């Protein structure tokens, strides 16, 4: 029987549907794919974002689910030791009797220990721990001495991710650096230790070299052109040192990915041409000033900005120690805060994100790339929350606020900036080393501080005519933080929100509410130590083409508007206003 709908029904539902559709567009909800122009090059490129406007992150599969390889395990602690001489911050140190000791998880033909390696050339990832006690005393304490019969197996604290990497076809090594612990610095020395281990692996891969350690088990199985480095704490900076020395000394190891976990930043190294990922806990009670953010900020410097992606996760509730299972003490700050996550939850984040990072940059599997950009989240990591920074190598920086002398009314493209009633409105170093707006900044960048306590405030950036065509990009992005001000302009515990508008040369202007896309959180509550930490917000350019169907001409963008109209008061830091892939 054919159901016949009445004319009255049709008269109601059709206009109502169109009304809701238009409302959805105005609120930037992806109710429907926006109108498409044939000349939009994005539409043939469905990588990551694709042509659609996506507001809320999608859900993807956990990249750290076990892979299809059997995982075998071995270790080495060579009978001969080495001497490491290193110069760091003007002082030269010499460490003798440094052991070459490590644990290895690798793809095997079975799960038995010391099994033959699975067929193929496998990428190599090397983890390195940081400073910690090296002897276990009779009470179970980890101390620097006197020596006991039981050394602290600091390097075995990352087995939880080594095992998972191996299941995905990666030879995953964690090296022991006890002989460099309980001493000052030793960042460059750590880097040299890593490079020495890479030299061992190069030899173990070479059938022409004698191999008393493994008897040739790894011959032709190690891909020394797909090497990843990961390090925690001092190890997190040691790997940066290793990468740079490999490059400056022409050692030739194919290091293709570098990943720091809660690193220190003693030596202020700058990475310029390797994918870099830093994971930091917001409740870090040791590296309390979140030094990894400085490594992130300096990476891909202004003069050499297009050779590497960089990414950062700022994990609320995570401490310093628990990324290593051997470092069982909780130094978290605050120790019993309401937003702390457990050690298991903390490591689940490293397992997922570390695996995603190395699978992408060593194996070319970018399915989880969106975890770093914020386009996707993993439900399995709840309740852990992390806020990210991300920069694609392909980007156009409209303003990075690095003017010397500071000039908030001039942007990096040479266009004018306008301030409509914002106060304060000035560029500051976002740093703990002087000159910052207040003492809640721990980064290594300059940014714009903007505050408001009345309606009608706006920050407008003019895009010069030479840069008006942004069709090569897929996102408008910027970094933002709520500035912690003890509740004066940013109410305690509340998220921030405002509008972003793009305007073309014809005066068409479309605003999107940032809160529809992402969250600008209140700073993580560390009594006496709150941090104003920048995070990246990315708005897909297709989203700006939705409203009214007339579309915005992204071949001819003239202005960018930050309209602070969603909250009656606010105080934010801004940086890296960009169009980006």
């Amino acid at each position: 029987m054919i159901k016949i709908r009445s004319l009255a029904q049709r008269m109601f539902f059709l206009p109502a549907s169109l009304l809701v559709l238009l409302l959805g567009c105005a609120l930037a909800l992806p109710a429907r794919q926006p109108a498409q122009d044939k000349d939009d090059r994005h539409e043939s490129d469905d990588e990551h974002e694709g042509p659609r406007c996506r507001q809320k992150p999608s859900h993807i599969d956990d990249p750290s689910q076990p892979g299809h390889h059997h995982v075998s395990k071995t270790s080495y602690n060579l009978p001969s030791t080495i001497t490491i001489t290193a110069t760091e911050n003007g002082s030269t140190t010499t460490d003798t009797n440094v052991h070459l000791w490590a644990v290895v998880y690798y793809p095997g033909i079975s799960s038995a220990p010391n099994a033959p390696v699975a067929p193929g050339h496998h990428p190599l990832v090397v983890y390195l721990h940081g400073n910690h006690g090296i002897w276990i005393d009779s009470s179970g304490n980890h101390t620097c001495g006197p020596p006991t019969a039981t050394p602290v197996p600091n390097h075995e604290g990352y087995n939880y991710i080594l095992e998972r990497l191996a299941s995905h076809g990666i030879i995953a090594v964690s090296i022991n650096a006890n002989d460099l612990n309980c001493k000052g610095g030793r960042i460059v020395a750590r880097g040299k230790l890593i490079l020495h281990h890479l030299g061992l692996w190069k030899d173990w891969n070479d059938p022409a070299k004698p191999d008393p350690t493994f008897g040739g088990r790894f011959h032709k199985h190690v891909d020394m052109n797909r090497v990843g480095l990961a390090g925690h704490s001092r190890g997190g900076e040691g790997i940066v040192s290793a990468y740079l020395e490999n490059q400056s000394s022409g050692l030739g190891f194919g290091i293709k990915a570098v990943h720091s976990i809660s690193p220190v930043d003693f030596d202020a190294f700058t990475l310029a041409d390797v994918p870099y990922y830093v994971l930091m806990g917001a409740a870090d009670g040791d590296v309390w000033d979140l030094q990894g953010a400085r490594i992130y900020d300096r990476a891909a410097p202004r003069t050499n900005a297009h050779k590497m992606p960089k990414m950062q996760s700022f994990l609320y509730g995570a401490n310093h120690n628990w990324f290593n299972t051997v470092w069982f003490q909780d130094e978290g700050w605050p120790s019993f805060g309401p937003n702390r996550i457990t050690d298991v939850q903390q490591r689940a984040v490293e397992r997922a994100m570390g695996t995603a990072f190395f699978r992408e940059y060593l194996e070319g599997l970018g399915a989880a790339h969106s975890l770093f950009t914020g386009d996707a989240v993993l439900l399995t990591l709840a309740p852990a929350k992390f806020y990210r920074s991300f920069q694609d190598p392909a980007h156009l920086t409209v303003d990075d606020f690095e003017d010397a002398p500071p000039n908030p009314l001039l942007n990096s493209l040479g266009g004018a900036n306008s301030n409509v009633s914002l106060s304060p409105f000035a560029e500051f170093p976002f740093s703990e080393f002087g000159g910052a707006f207040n003492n809640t900044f721990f980064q290594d960048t300059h940014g714009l501080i903007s505050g408001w306590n009345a309606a009608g405030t706006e920050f407008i950036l003019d895009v010069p005519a030479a840069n008006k065509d942004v069709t090569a990009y897929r996102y408008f992005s910027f970094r933002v933080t709520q500035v912690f001000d003890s509740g004066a302009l940013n109410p305690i515990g509340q998220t921030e929100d405002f509008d972003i508008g793009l305007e073309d040369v014809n005066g068409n202007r479309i605003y999107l509410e940032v809160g529809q896309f992402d969250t600008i959180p209140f700073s993580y509550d560390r009594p006496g130590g709150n941090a104003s930490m920048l995070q990246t917000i990315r708005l897909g350019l297709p989203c700006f083409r939705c409203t009214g169907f007339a579309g915005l001409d992204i071949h001819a963008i003239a202005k960018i508007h930050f309209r602070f109209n969603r909250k009656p008061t606010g105080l934010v830091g801004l940086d890296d206003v960009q169009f980006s892939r």
Partner: protein
Amino acid sequence: MRSRSLFILLLAAPITFSASALPQEKQPPEKKPPVTYLHQPLKDAKLEAQRIHLKKPVEIIEEGVKRTVSVVLEFRVTSSQAIPVRALDPVLVVGEVSIREYRYENRDRSLVFTLYDPEKAKDGAAAYLQFGTDASTRTEFESFRSAAIKDD
């Protein structure tokens, strides 16, 4: 799509976006780990200085300049607690000098700093210990007194 279906779908869309029921990963029950609070001065801390005549002179290199040292000043910080071994280095500041060369002793109840230029420690200089830039860890000592230096 029929218009009624479209209407219902569009009305439901925002609800779908906001109603994200987040299943949590089951975590095994674990014993609560011990807590160590780092943001405080050392307990019952004392500072002593001792002049050490090295049995075998050592070569040190600073700013690329090599020299031989046979007498050093060692500053011994002692505490009733284990002195934390952490990512951030302890630094002993004596007046204008920041001493970063150290070793732990006595199950971490002692921290011994070595100053290769004993003359840089000025009589009456203020002295304190701090981990990195973490001012909450600053442990103040009595001013350094040259007369109080012990000889080995």
